[in-house]
């Protein structure tokens, strides 16, 4: 259950996380609460979504949507 498929598109879990970020959740803790996903899944999912270019990671591990991520949600 990764957050990004081999074809580079986000999975349902990935989309849920992107939507949580769009709604203003910026930290792994907040995203875990918003999505109901366990923290380990959120942490690994954030890495994948950042690596795939859907999220940007700023200072203090705060994340935000990239243009590419914004276009999906």
């Amino acid at each position, binding site marked *: *259950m*990764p*957050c990004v498929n081999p074809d580079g598109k986000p999975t349902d879990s990935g989309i849920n996380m992107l939507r949580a970020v769009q709604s203003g959740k910026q930290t792994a803790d907040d995203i875990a609460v918003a999505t109901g996903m*366990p*923290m*380990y*899944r959120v*942490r*690994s*999912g954030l890495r994948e979504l950042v690596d795939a270019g859907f999220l940007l990671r700023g200072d203090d591990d705060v994340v935000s949507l990239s243009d590419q991520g914004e276009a999906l949600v």
Partner: protein
Amino acid sequence: MEEETAQFTGMPRLGDPVPDMEVQTTHGTLRLSDFKGSWLVIFSHPADFTPVCTTEFMAFAQIHPGLKKRGVELLGLSVDSLTSHIAWVRNIEEKTGVKIDFPIIADLNKEVATRFGMVHPGQSKTETVRCVFIIDPNQVFRLMLYYPLSTGRNMDEILRVIDALQMTDANKVATPANWRPGDMVIVPPPQTQEAAEERLKQGYECVDWYFCKKKV
């Protein structure tokens, strides 16, 4: 021969920090540090599609909700491939109705098994034995259990020791033999003569000054 022996000698010890490793699992690529902040049970099994392991996976799935209530995540491991793990958990669900919803590490190159001392050559040179590592939220090894290939694990004991560890951490006490939640706990022995005198006046249930119990 020496090299072969050497690769099996990496045994973690209680109190050691857990090495941070990136692992391939049925839930994607994870790092062990992704579990920081939660208790974690990492357990190994010898092989997919084997009967004892299947009963254990069903049993782990059954205690998974209870583990979550205790703030504990579950992570399986064997030296099988991801494809094998996926096929096996699908088979378990199809044949028994039990859904395996925790991740399983595919440790084909035995990297994790070697670092965690899960291969015991006296049992098998190729398969992992039935290890249970209980890791605390600070990613420290707190308890280890090892079972041979022939003996399935006892889930009640795993829950019991987690309850005991969490009780002792929260209350700075120890737990006696066969302790279960609700039983009395052991007050740490006093470290000074004065404390030993005072101990007997504190309303604990004491056998002697060094052996006192209390309710929590």
